[in-house]
Structures are given as structure tokens and as C-alpha cells.
């Protein structure tokens, strides 16, 4: 498996650029149905949902609240199994909606969490994460706890933690939803830049259509619950993209239309 190779590489040669993910990092979700039994009865989260993401492709999934976007990501990450249909995905690491940083750890140790989870010792994990922290503009904040970091910084630490899991697929669950508008725009530009230098297969769930267009190679629009893909919009635009670019605006309107918003 490609993830294995990448993992070994990271452990043995931390100074080298790790995370080589040339191999197949594809995600295939075929006609998946997922139903939850709640106290108020059956809840169909997904029905006939399909999603194909090629290796190294960035795909955004947009849809109304409660359309099963988070369920979709958990299926991709193997945290749930579908009731019908199939999910096959290269190993995926989750970046949760809230940053979920551990309040007792500094930024560096929080970023190390995925490495520690795999069994790396603290010092090795720190040595490996340190250059990344600096690259992500977090140098000097190694020992700063989350409560003292800004929202944008916390989100960068959270992203780094998921990146250092060394998985070929990143499952990002509304990563910037909790940020203020200006920080969100900055973080979108930042993530776009990072993914250019660190290509990964990315499934980015968001309810922000503009974010979806600016970041993704392709946008998949989902229906209200039970969620399924109702439209697909290719984004054949060069990066970096700007939200006021006429093409971006046009694609955004297309996506909003697919979501049922009249022009």
C-alpha cells in the first residue's frame, strides 16, 4: 500500500520531504445508502450517493445542512460502514469541523498527535513536525496552547496534524466554517497554496460554495436529505483563483443554481 511506504519513509528519514503519495490515492463511493435509527424513527442520511475522486484530485462537496456530508466523510475514513452500496478508499485522515486541539498541549505537540498515535516517541515526533510548523507560519508558537492561538492558527495546526498522519487522502470537514470571514478568505488562499506544494487527494466538505470553487478541481453538489450527488461542476481554472474572477463567479452561480437558488 502506498501509505505504508510513505509512513516508513517518514520514520526513517524525517529530514527528507516526507509524505510521498504518488500511488493510487483514489476514493470511490458507489451508490451508498446510510440510514440511522434515531429515537424519532428512521433517518436516511444518504441514498444512492456516488463520489469518485481521482488520485491527487481536490473535490469539494457542497450541500444544504444535514444532507449527510459528514456521514460521507466518515464513510471515506472508514469510521462508518454503508448500509448499501460500496466505499473503497485509500487510507484517509480526517480534519474535523471543530479543531479539536488538545487544550493541554502546545501547538507543536498538537501537530504531533497523529505521529504519536502511530507510536512514535515524543522527541522523534517533535523533530519531524518542527520544520512543518515553521513552514506553516507557526514558528515561535511551539509551546503555545490552543486557548492562546488565533482561530486561523488553530486551524493550521489542525490541518498539519491531519497532514502528518501521512495518509494519501485528506477528508476535510468544513475546515474553515468556524472562522470569521476575513480569516476564512486568508485560510482558503493558504490551503490552496499548501495543496499545490503538497498534493493530496482531498475531499473537502463545505457549505460555502465560493470556497468550493476557489479550492477544488471539481465540485459535487448534493441534494437535501437523503443526500445524493445531483450535479458536478468542473473547475478548469488556474490557481491561485480569485473570488471576484468572472469565471469563478459564473461557476459559483451554477453551483448555487444546482442547490436550488434562483439566479
Amino acid at each position, binding site marked *: 500500500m502506498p501509505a505504508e511506504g510513505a509512513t516508513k519513509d517518514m520514520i526513517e528519514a524525517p529530514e527528507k520531504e516526507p509524505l510521498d503519495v504518488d500511488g493510487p490515492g483514489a476514493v470511490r463511493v458507489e451508490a451508498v445508502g446510510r440510514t440511522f435509527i434515531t429515537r424519532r424513527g428512521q433517518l436516511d442520511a444518504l441514498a444512492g450517493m456516488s463520489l469518485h475522486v481521482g488520485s491527487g484530485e481536490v473535490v469539494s462537496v457542497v450541500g444544504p445542512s444535514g444532507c449527510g456530508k459528514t456521514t460521507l466523510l*466518515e464513510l471515506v*475514513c*472508514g*469510521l462508518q460502514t454503508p448500509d448499501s452500496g460500496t466505499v473503497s478508499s485509500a487510507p*484517509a*485522515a*480526517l480534519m*474535523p469541523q*471543530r479543531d*479539536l486541539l*488538545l*487544550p*493541554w498541549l502546545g501547538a507543536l505537540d498538537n501537530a504531533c*498527535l*497523529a505521529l*504519536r*498515535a*502511530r*507510536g512514535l516517541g515524543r522527541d522523534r515526533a517533535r523533530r519531524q513536525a518542527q520544520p512543518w510548523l515553521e513552514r506553516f507560519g507557526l514558528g515561535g508558537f511551539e509551546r503555545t*496552547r490552543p*486557548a*492562546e*492561538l*488565533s482561530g486561523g*492558527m488553530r486551524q493550521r495546526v489542525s490541518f498539519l496534524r491531519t497532514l502528518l*498522519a501521512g*495518509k494519501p487522502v485528506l*477528508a476535510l470537514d468544513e475546515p474553515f466554517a468556524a472562522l470569521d470571514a476575513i480569516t476564512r478568505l486568508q485560510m482558503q488562499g493558504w490551503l490552496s497554496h499548501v495543496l499545490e506544494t503538497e498534493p493530496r487527494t482531498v475531499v473537502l466538505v463545505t457549505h460555502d460554495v465560493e470556497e468550493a470553487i476557489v479550492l477544488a478541481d471539481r465540485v459535487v453538489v448534493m441534494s437535501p436529505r437523503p443526500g445524493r450527488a445531483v450535479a458536478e461542476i468542473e473547475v478548469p481554472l488556474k490557481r491561485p483563483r480569485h473570488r471576484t474572477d468572472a469565471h469563478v463567479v459564473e461557476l459559483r452561480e451554477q453551483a448555487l443554481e444546482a442547490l436550488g437558488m434562483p439566479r
Partner: protein
Amino acid sequence: MRRLASRGWRPLVLLAVLIGTWELYVDLGGADSLILPPPHQIASSLYDDRSLLWSSFLVTAREVLLGIMLAAIAGFACAVALHFSTRTLRPAVYPLLIASQTVPVPIIAPLLVLWLGFGILPKLVVIALVSFFSIVVTTLAGLAAVDPELPKLMRTFDATRVRVFRLVELPAALPGVFTGAKISVVVAVIGAVFAEQAGSSSGLGYLFQQSVPQLLTARAYAAVVILSAFAILLFGLLALAERLVLPWAYQPLGERPA
């Protein structure tokens, strides 16, 4: 220290007012000083009987400290075991734990003396019994209060169950452990008194029991004062340790860098 100096006078003022009222009440003939000794008699007993009180205190302090350690180790281990077996062990054991708390200590203490003799052992068991429960409950609550998304996240990082516990759940539960310990030190002191009264020849609880029939009420109250001061001291030490060990739990949400 400055915070302590600026706020520490408040309980002292309240205490002074209470003691003053008490003193006046007894002095003006509100109560027989044999039944309710005035504070100045307790104070002079604290001084006059200092060597007796001190040697008794050492006995009780040893029992309390060892008993709490026993309770902390057993309570923590029990909480972790129940946490790891939420489905089977926890529903089976939890009701019994609660039941163990309803056993009246004054009744079980003499039985323990019969079984375990007059030494320190029955005292440790009584103290551990009364202080064990709060440690189990608060530790268990702390372990269970971890955001349910975190174990999920850790699973996508390929963490084993033990690593999720060590890296995420255990540190998250530590504030709860301290809360339980702070509650249990206070009840442990009460437990020590009951245990000593059930059968012993030394300690503050024993001294208290011996002093009342001898009409040495001031001495009995002096023993109570020392027990209270000891409980406050232990509580304060734990609170201090908590701040040193878990600074993040006290981190104020202050200014954040942009």
C-alpha cells in the same frame, strides 16, 4: 501570593466574626461552657495539650494520608477498568459501588476492627471506603466527558485503544481526578475519626472520644479544630498541585495573537 494576600482576609474576617459571636454567646451565659466551651478555652487547650494533640495528630495524619493513597490508587484503577468496559463491567459494578457508599461507617467500622484487629489496617480500609467513591465517580466522568469526535479522529490516525487512552482520555480526565481527590481528603478525615472511635488507642478521633466523658470538652473541640485545619491544608495542597500540574485547566481565555 499577592492574590492570596488580597483575598485571603475575607474568610479570616468571617471566621473572626463567628468566633467573636460564639465567645460572646458563651460568656453572656447562653450555654454551659462544659457543653459549648468558649473559643478562648479551646485556644488555651490547643496550647496546654499541645504535645498530646501533636502526637495524636501524627497518628491520624498517617492514617489519613495512607488511606487516601490507597483510595486514590484503587479508585483510579477501578475507574479505568470500568471505562474500558462500559458495556459489561460498568453496569454490573456501578450499582454495587453506590451501594458500598450507603453502608453506615459507624456500623461497619467495629466489624472491621473485629476482622482486622486494632492496628492501622481497619482505619485504612474505612478511610479508603469513604473516600474511594468520589474518586471513582469524578475520574469516570472525566474519562467519559472526552469529546466523542476525538476518538474518531484518533482512529483515522490509526491509534490503538490504549494510545487513545494515554494520549487523549487520561490527560482529559486529570482535572476530574483532582476534583475527586479534593472531595475525598475531606471525607477521609471524617472516616479516620469513625475508624479510631471503633477501636484504637491513639489518634485525634480517639482523643475526642476520651475527652468528652472526662468533661474535657475544650480539648475535644481542640481536636476538631486540628482535624479541620488538616483537611483544609490537604485540600489547599491539592489545589496548588492541580495548578502546577494542570496549568491549562486554569488558562484564562485572554487576548489572542492575531
